[in-house]
């Protein structure tokens, strides 16, 4: 039963042709097979949110999906947020300017969560943002600067 199946994933606009066991989670496929280690594993049972990515635009826990399920979907990870090598995505920039990270392990998950939320609803207010940010755990920051950064990003993205 440990046979692998061929799988084509579209991640950050790029095609990855990989071969995985069905039991390989999407998180592990991204990390081990696509070489995109920015998505982190903090618990592997869907609570901490460090593995949050965007699947078809929606924040999703990559540890709670098998890679084979993601065939045909558009996947975005933290590596695909910045437009290029020079610029950062507004959410990344806001986290940087507002000291929104310390050890950085939870950060990619928060970035994708917030980017996904703001792309879906640029008018997200603070109350709703608190709700959204409560989805993920951070052990270092106490969340205050994460909220500050997220609201700053919202303002920036509204233009």
């Amino acid at each position, binding site marked *: *039963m440990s046979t692998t199946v061929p799988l084509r994933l579209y991640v950050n606009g790029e095609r990855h042709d990989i071969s995985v066991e069905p039991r390989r989670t999407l998180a592990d496929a991204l990390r081990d097979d696509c070489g995109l280690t920015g998505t982190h594993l903090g618990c592997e*049972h*869907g609570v901490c949110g460090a593995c949050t990515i965007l699947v078809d635009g929606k*924040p999703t826990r990559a540890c709670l999906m098998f890679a*084979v399920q993601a065939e045909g979907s558009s996947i975005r990870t933290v590596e695909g947020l910045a437009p290029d090598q020079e610029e950062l995505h507004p959410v990344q920039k806001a986290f940087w300017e507002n000291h929104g990270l310390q050890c950085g392990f939870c950060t990619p998950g928060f970035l994708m969560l917030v980017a996904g939320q703001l792309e879906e609803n640029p008018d997200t207010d603070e109350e709703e943002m608190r709700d959204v940010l409560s989805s993920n755990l951070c052990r270092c920051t106490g969340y205050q600067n994460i909220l500050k950064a997220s609201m700053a990003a919202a303002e920036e993205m509204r233009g």
Partner: protein
Amino acid sequence: MKPASFDYVRPHSLEEALAELAKDPDETKVLAGGQSLIPMMNFRLARPERLVDINRIPDLEGIETVGDRVVIRTRTRHLVLQNLSMPTPLGSLLRHGAANVGHLPIRTRGTFGGSLAHCDAASEWCLVASLLDADVTVQSQARGSRTIRAADFFLSIFTTAMEPDEILTEVSLPALDDSYVTGIAEFARRAGDFAIVAATGAVKVVDDVVADARVCLGGVSEVPFRSRAAEQVLLGQTWTPQLVTAAAEAAADEVDPSSDAHGDADYRRDLVRALLPRALGER
């Protein structure tokens, strides 16, 4: 924590899915949202040898009103229900219920039907289904379609009346008219956690008098608990905050919760007393 190996099939029709399930029902699990199943598989607490992924089967999601019933198809995601534009007491109940389910990323994938099939006694959809005496439709290759009333559907902890070769396809709920007051209130340690105790209610108030009363509690027994005592206190009485408090007291007396790390029986009764009034709009 990596799951044990399994074979994976992703059928394109319900018939195909049922056929796959029929091949080896005891060693096969249906994969819908995966938000409950996959963590258990990652812990190796669940080790199905085969997974039937029903996510690509058309016509398995959506919600529609058919006469005086509202039909929710099995793979309707929690998030869809959270954003439901149905300006009725049932719509309100569904929106509030969905908002309580885990967190945003869980809601984008978790499904209504999956929740029922999983049968966690404190989960929102199990409570709503029990509250409203939902009709649950399941289907197998061998026997076709059958409908199970909610009261007969939830048997015990994580155990429903479904056979291993059946897939839950849709749930039918009564479309409550505008005279209904509905609500859900739950107590959890943190935002998004499973409820320790939850209370749902649907009360029909006509000319200030209770014409129909439904109360369902979660976290107080192995399956969702319809509090007949609370319903009897409410029925036929004048709709006041004091009435609801009395109903909550009756419910607290009626239940016989077990004790665990999250709370003993007395504490769960206290939560019933606190939550039922909050569910029905009082503080």
